[in-house]
């Protein structure tokens, strides 16, 4: 990450209210091209809500979002996707009844022109889906297999492969490894490393400090809708980060009672 460049995305004082619930109370985060920015924090801290304002799902109640230096006003996720921002949501955004390749290209269907009309290019979709899944270390029975027949981790892998494939500029991953096995987790982390090298900005949400430490360049900790702080890689020890994520002191007591296993 080179700091003389201007950030790819700048989120300034983002607030998001749901009725009387204040999910975000002024969060500022920026993401540079080629960096992996980890968002950490307890359950309910507002991480998912925050990345949803970045991917066009929610409109922030107040605050400013700059994308490549220009104020961005995404009306819906479609705008964000066409700007090159791809997201793996915590709930994956997969349709169980639909096939893997239909899911993979949902919202971004490849088209083939026949005469004046455009058709869904199933052949291309099937081929790319199989290829991308193979790269992630999962061999599918077939591209027309329904997502509902996949295991939880396999589903997550499809969602990640899809985001990696479409995330031309920014890749947002909300707890992408929560259901993954050892090999697939390693694969995802190395994929993050790879796309970062290609100059894509990555936003990674995780509860696992080791994963964050493995690929993160900067770490921002959220707590109860507010930014606790941002640290660079090397400036902070894993133990410190873990304490910040859990909201500070309580964990120390808890940890000692569990014999230091957390």
């Amino acid at each position: 990450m080179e700091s003389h460049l201007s950030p790819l995305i700048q989120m300034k004082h983002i607030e998001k209210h749901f009725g009387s619930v204040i999910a975000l109370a002024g969060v500022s985060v920026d993401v540079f091209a080629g960096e992996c920015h980890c968002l950490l924090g307890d359950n309910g801290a507002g991480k998912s809500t925050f990345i949803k304002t970045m991917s066009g799902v929610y409109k922030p109640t107040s605050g400013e979002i700059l994308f490549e230096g220009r104020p961005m006003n995404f009306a819906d996720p479609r705008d964000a996707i066409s700007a090159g921002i791809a997201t793996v949501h915590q709930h994956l955004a997969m349709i169980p009844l639909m096939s893997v390749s239909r899911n993979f290209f949902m919202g971004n269907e490849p088209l083939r022109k026949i005469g004046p009309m455009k058709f869904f290019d199933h052949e291309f979709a099937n081929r790319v889906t199989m290829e991308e899944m193979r790269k992630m270390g999962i061999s599918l029975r077939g591209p027309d297999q329904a997502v509902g027949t996949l295991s939880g981790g396999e589903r997550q892998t499809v969602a990640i492969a899809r985001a990696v494939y479409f995330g031309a500029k920014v890749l947002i991953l909300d707890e992408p490894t929560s259901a993954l096995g050892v090999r697939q987790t390693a694969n995802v982390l190395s994929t993050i490393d790879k796309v970062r090298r290609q100059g894509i900005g990555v936003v990674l949400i995780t509860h696992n400090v080791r994963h964050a430490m493995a690929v993160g360049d900067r770490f921002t900790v959220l707590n109860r809708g507010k930014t606790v702080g941002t640290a660079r890689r090397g400036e902070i020890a894993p133990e410190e980060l873990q304490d910040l994520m859990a909201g500070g002191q309580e964990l120390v007591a808890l940890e000692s009672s569990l014999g230091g296993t957390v």
Partner: protein
Amino acid sequence: MPEISSVDKSDERIKSRSRFREALIVPELGGICGTILVFAFFLLTAGESGMFNAAGVLNWSVVSAQFMIIAVGACLLMIAGEFDLSVGSMIGFAGMMIAIFSVNMDWPMWIAILVAFAICLATGALNGWICVRTGLPSFIVTLASLFILRGLTIFLPQTLENKTIIGGVREAAEGDWLAPVFGGKVLTGLFQWFGEIGVIATFERGVNKGMPVVDGIPMLIAWALALIVFGHVLLTKTRFGNWIFASGGDAESARNSGVPVNRVKIMMFMFTAFCATVFATCQVIEFGSAGADRGLLKEFEAIIAVVIGGALLTGGYGSVLGAALGALIFGVVQQGLFFAGVESSLFRVFLGIILLFAVVLNTYIRRIITGEK
């Protein structure tokens, strides 16, 4: 990364299944089996009754085509995750509009038809808009439209003419350029020739002496086939089709992936309204009149045909071809019992049995395909 094993090999965790079994696992299986069953039944019980000569085939084809027209619309809408219970009322309403415009108000037929289409498409769009904006179940919203449209269909002719049936449509359609698109016949030359070479029986006497008993394919059937092909291609071969599946499968996920769910749903409500209006226009031109009770219960018949055809009531899954087979079963059973000389109340008994049978089969197949619990 270590080299990943077992990837390029064929997967050892898959039992090989026979081609035949693979071919059987399609969403339309319930519809296909039902169709075979129904035809077998009537070939045995009504084979001699004229049900399968040219006039008989035309008879149940027309009835099936009516069901097909509304089933295609209901099918795509159901896959997009919504229902339209106002289809039957809209059929009555659209027909009444055409009759009032062309007979009472003396508009040219083509203007009457186009304006009726515009009003009904707008009503469909309004149904859809209310559903997506309020998040209310379409079941409730379109139930309201069911009453509103039916009420208007009875009220308007009573106020204007003091009766509930408006006739004289056929005369008003005389010489119009658009009316034959709904009320005409195609391939009349071909059928004339069929009559001459004796493939089809000809009238022996009367004014039509020498004419074939079936002198062409009614436009109603042409519309049904065109809508089936259109619906099937749209659903399975286009980007929009993927959006239809996605919107019905999980609207939230679809939206987050960039599918314009609201637009898709509203357009499907409009398409359902379009199908209902096609049905209505064909019907008023054929009957020459519009009645306030036309289209009664059609919404349920359409939904039943769609479900027989393998669609999931909760959306996200289904087949236009299946729905067309469901409509065919419907039409053949309804007319077949008449040919077989069976009490028409048995139509319902038989239909109930077929419905149950097809849905059980469909559910079983769907679980195999989608891994649904």
